[in-house]
């Protein structure tokens, strides 16, 4: 018995000793063991940007990136279901789609909802993050030690981008929350920001674009062959500014900018024929104000794959033909049969497999929704859906016709100059020129101008804004059969996830009516 308790005592002591050793060891060793994690293929925040090339790469990756026109989801100007131009044109009398994916019906039938399962109307709200990335980029460049000249130039480009993106979001959703650099630094602060109201939003966009222009750091325009072709220009900044003023019905300001852009120092000219604007041979032509540049490898545009149908003849047999987007027959039929633009808005073709003639009367399975908006030329090297053709974002014909509109609206009278400007695109299509006498009143002119712009810019992303400006967006939606179109739909709904997020901070940021 005695022996036993003695042994137990030893055990107890042992336990104590072992525990103390254990605790001591852990304290000593854990403090001196240096555990290492490495990601070898990243750049850590504190190392960047150090050089001018670094800062330039940062601007490419965070400032230019949203404006690309690549494959699925790459950039605002991709031509898939997340493409800005495609999605907004689908809501108008110019767009329809033969596919059945969930993104299309709510856009086509103007049934906008914050919970639309295809997110067609709500998806662009996420570009809010890109505005903040630009804000942080300006901070990073400013605090880096690169040469001042480079700082100025890169910041001018960034501010141009920020103004442009803010305009695009403003046009879609109305005022948006704009964060200050300090609000972006601490992810543990989780508070929603109120939306910037209309007037402040305009001031913000104007301020950004003007800052870029007034810095004198941007070139007026680049021509094909220029080393910096594809970078933002004064021409681009002015174009966006003009669109903002048109949106705000500031006709005089819009007119001033329109005239500025007609100045020879920009070198913009209309191409002789409509279809030559969009071919590979004429890529980067003088009509282009800014294009999302593609090479078919690093960045591929995919237009033909989206619109051509099986059986539509192409020289390059590899071109993918999904046969999606269409211009509804109702709009197609508004064209004069001699209109040369119909060369690339195809209402009839011979099926290369069957020899059958496919057209409005015999639409088969490829033209049942409307005409095929071929528009762009072929890429002879395309291995499928990829195309090396630049996707034109803004072109001079847009400026010319907007200027015509601004002049008439400002004066509330049709002038010869306005008619001449409209004729620049009208006669290029091979149709008899308008005469001043053709228009009995300004409204008649504006109606004709709206139609002319429609015929000129199908699937170029101007139709929704045009119709809203002319007060016809909802009317036209109803005319094409929308049972849901309502006046509040001139603004798109804020996505429900962002609305729920703001509710957590106590307020509703949704646009009225939704």
């Amino acid at each position, binding site marked *: 018995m005695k022996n*036993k308790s003695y042994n*137990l005592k030893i*055990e107890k002591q*042992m*336990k104590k000793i*072992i*525990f103390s050793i*254990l605790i001591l060891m852990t304290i000593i*060793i854990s403090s001196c063991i240096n*555990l290492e*994690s*490495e*990601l*070898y*293929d990243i750049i850590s*925040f504190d190392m*960047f940007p150090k050089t001018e090339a670094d800062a*330039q*790469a940062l601007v*490419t*990756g*965070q400032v230019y*990136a949203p404006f690309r026109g690549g494959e699925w989801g790459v950039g605002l100007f991709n031509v898939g279901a997340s493409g800005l131009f495609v999605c907004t044109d689908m809501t108008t009398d110019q767009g329809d789609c033969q596919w*059945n*994916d*969930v993104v299309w019906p*709510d856009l086509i039938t103007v*049934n906008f*909802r914050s919970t*639309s399962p*295809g997110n067609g109307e709500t998806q662009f709200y996420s570009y809010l*993050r890109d505005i903040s*990335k630009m804000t942080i980029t300006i901070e990073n460049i400013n605090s880096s030690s690169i040469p001042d000249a480079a700082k100025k130039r890169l910041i001018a480009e960034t501010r141009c981008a920020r103004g442009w993106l803010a305009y695009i979001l403003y046009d879609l959703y109305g005022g948006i929350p*704009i964060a200050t650099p300090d609000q*972006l630094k601490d*992810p*543990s602060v*989780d508070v929603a920001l109120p939306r910037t109201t209309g007037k402040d939003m305009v001031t913000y966009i104007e301020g950004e674009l003007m800052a870029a222009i007034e810095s004198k750091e941007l070139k007026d325009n680049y021509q094909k062959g220029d*080393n910096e072709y594809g970078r933002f220009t004064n021409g681009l900044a002015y174009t966006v500014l003009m669109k903002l003023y048109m949106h705000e019905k500031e006709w005089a300001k819009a007119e001033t900018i329109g005239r500025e852009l007609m100045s020879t120092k920009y070198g913009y000219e209309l191409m002789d024929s409509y279809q030559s604007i969009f071919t590979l041979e004429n890529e980067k032509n003088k009509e282009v104000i800014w294009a999302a*540049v593609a090479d078919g490898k*690093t*960045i591929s545009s995919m237009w033909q794959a989206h619109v051509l149908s*099986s*059986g539509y003849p192409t020289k390059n047999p590899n071109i*993918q033909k999904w046969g999606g987007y269409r211009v509804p027959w109702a709009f197609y039929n508004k064209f004069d049969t001699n209109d040369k633009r119909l060369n690339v808005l195809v209402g009839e073709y011979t099926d290369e*497999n*069957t020899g059958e003639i496919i057209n409005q009367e015999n639409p088969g*399975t490829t033209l049942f929704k409307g005409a095929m908006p071929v528009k762009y030329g072929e890429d002879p090297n395309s*291995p*499928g859906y990829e195309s090396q053709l630049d996707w034109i974002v803004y072109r001079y014909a847009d400026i010319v016709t907007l200027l015509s509109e601004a002049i008439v609206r400002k004066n509330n009278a049709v002038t010869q100059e306005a008619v001449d400007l409209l004729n620049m695109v009208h006669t290029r299509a091979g149709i008899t020129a308008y005469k001043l006498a053709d228009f009995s009143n300004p409204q008649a002119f504006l109606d004709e101008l709206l139609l002319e712009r429609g015929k000129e810019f199908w699937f170029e992303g101007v139709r929704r804004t045009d119709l809203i400006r002319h007060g016809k967006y909802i009317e036209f939606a109803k005319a094409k059969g929308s*049972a*849901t179109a309502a006046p509040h739909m001139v603004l798109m709904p804020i996505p429900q*996830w962002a609305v*729920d*997020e703001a509710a*957590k901070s*106590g*307020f509703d940021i*949704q646009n009225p*009516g939704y």
Partner: protein
Amino acid sequence: MISGNYFIQNGVIKNNNLDRVTSRINIDQKLSEKVKTGINFTISRNTFDNVPLGSGQNENAPILVGAVQFNPLLPIKNENGEYQLNPEAMYMPNPVSLLEIANVSIKERLLANVYLEAKPIKNLLLRANFGVDRNYQKMKTYLPKTTLPGRMQGGKADIGQSDQSDYLLDLTATYTKEVEDHTFTTMVGHSFQQFNWENLSAGNSQFLTDVYLFNNIGAGVYPKPWVGSSANKNEIASFFGRINYSFKDRYLITATMRLDGASNFNKDHRWGYFPSISAGWRFIDEEFAQSLTKVLSNGKLRIGYGVTGKSNIGNAAISFYREGNSSLFGNEVESKGVYMAQLGNPKIKWEQNKELNIGLDLGFLNNRINLVAEYFNKVVDGWLSQRSLQSYMIVSQVADNIGSTQSRGFELTINSQSINRRDFSWSTDFTYSFYKDTWKDRGPYWKPSTYSIYNAPLRGSYGYLSDGLVQASDMDANGKSTITWMPGVIPGQVKIKDIDGFERNEDGTAKVGSDGRFIKTGKPDGKLDDADKVFYGSNDPQFIFGLNNTLRYKNWDLNIYFYGQFNKLNFGSYQDLWLTGANGMTGVINIYRGYNMPTSITDVWTHDNSNATRPGFFQDKSTYGIGDFYLKKIWFVRAQNITLGYTLPENIFFSNTRLYIDINNPFILTNYKGLDPETDSSVWAYPNVRTVSLGIDINF
């Protein structure tokens, strides 16, 4: 000991084969009375031939999707000997052509452990173990020009390989002491693990000929062949101690303490303490139980509580840029971009899994019937996951310890040796388990939807309630919908219920409650939105059981194993979803392309079959979806295995010879109408196989 194993299996689908070689070597060597060493090696090599599988659509249609959708009236090859394409879907490859794709993946693994054990003094065991775990994987693909995607790209070759080297060092000291009825075991140790990973990939296209496959990628003339590589390293270190104490094997106590450090956390949060304690009581050995031993032959109560840690969130504490987002400037020269890829959260720390276990082991009638009952309650505190950031933040999410979850369940196992006679025996194993995983604390960053439930199951589904099909009687004289909350719907589409709405302020904005969520009125508001969505239920099965019976009569033996799952949510089988759309395929509307349809198409609503039970041809035009139209709770009971054997009487050549027939997956009972309620991962699932094997076991 040295062993080797070679195994070949051909898939039910062609070109879907597996070939495996494994080899194992174990060597133990006594260096002296007190020192022992040993080495064990496992080497395996798996080679897979892969055929494209999955649920991709259109140009990405893999073999099963293609086989389902391809127009059966078309020949496999046309008069030129090329694979026929469907003129109504020229982008979809001919499914037979996909068999020409060469796709080989190789997985090699080397597991090596060396240990050294020493007993310097009595009762003390020192052990050092060093291990290497190397995983090497390689995937090689060639799309030949005879396939549609291969033709367009002039043949396309890809090679990717990844290399993982994990090192483990384990040092332990164990001291055991027995004093009469008391047994003590004390162990302390340290372990260190390093994980290294790297990969390399390359590819090219536009080949002159298909003959090289992926074995000459330099021969392609694509202007920008692709290459890629990446690498990372992580480390984990631990210090641990354990004390076991038992008295007469009747009372058992184990206490452990771990200190774990993970390199992916910031220095201040790197280390976590994880204690655990468990106790066992063999009450059958107590005196009061002795009177019961005729009936009760085993009785033990177990209880344990422990905390373990998890750090598997990646390198989420650091902020970094990645290269990408290239643009083209000048003469279309690529300009590499750099963008913020991750916003780090330096505050993240170990996730703590706190688990309570209570178990009861009972044996009856000399252990002819055994029962094990187990209850567990696991709380995960500081769950490591991603949380969403505000819509204006530069990235959409950040890692965090976002809240707690709770997992509770019960498991029961019963073994019974019901009959055990010389000529006849029958034994049964039954298992039953039931668990529930729910949210316990959503944390401060939770941004709920209107329909979210605070304590909801971790894996749950939400959506609209359906209300049959829209009929012609729902339309007014102008053909407009009279279902006010669904303007624009047409007959044959699924009708969705409007059950609730939001309270509005005078300016039309929705009212927000003090909990940061919109207030609902409880009344239909003529609109379909989040207010009308409801919780459908947990996606997990409610309970699972297994039942194994073994019977033996003289030389015959029979084994049948059943298992089943009950009350699992299912959103429709191929019979349903090929018609309404799934995985990007938009349903019955595609019949004009010649796609095959399930026989259930006869139930599709049409104007002259308005009593039909299934949504019509234009369901895809309704973006309100089908709600819970096909939602149901499914169950199944599967006979997993039936084996019938006959043992030959002993003879002079063989001591024991058994012939048997084994049927794997012979039948299933279920209320699910698709291919298989358990293995259908989508409506384009790989079929579950039934195997019949005949065998003979010979012992000399």
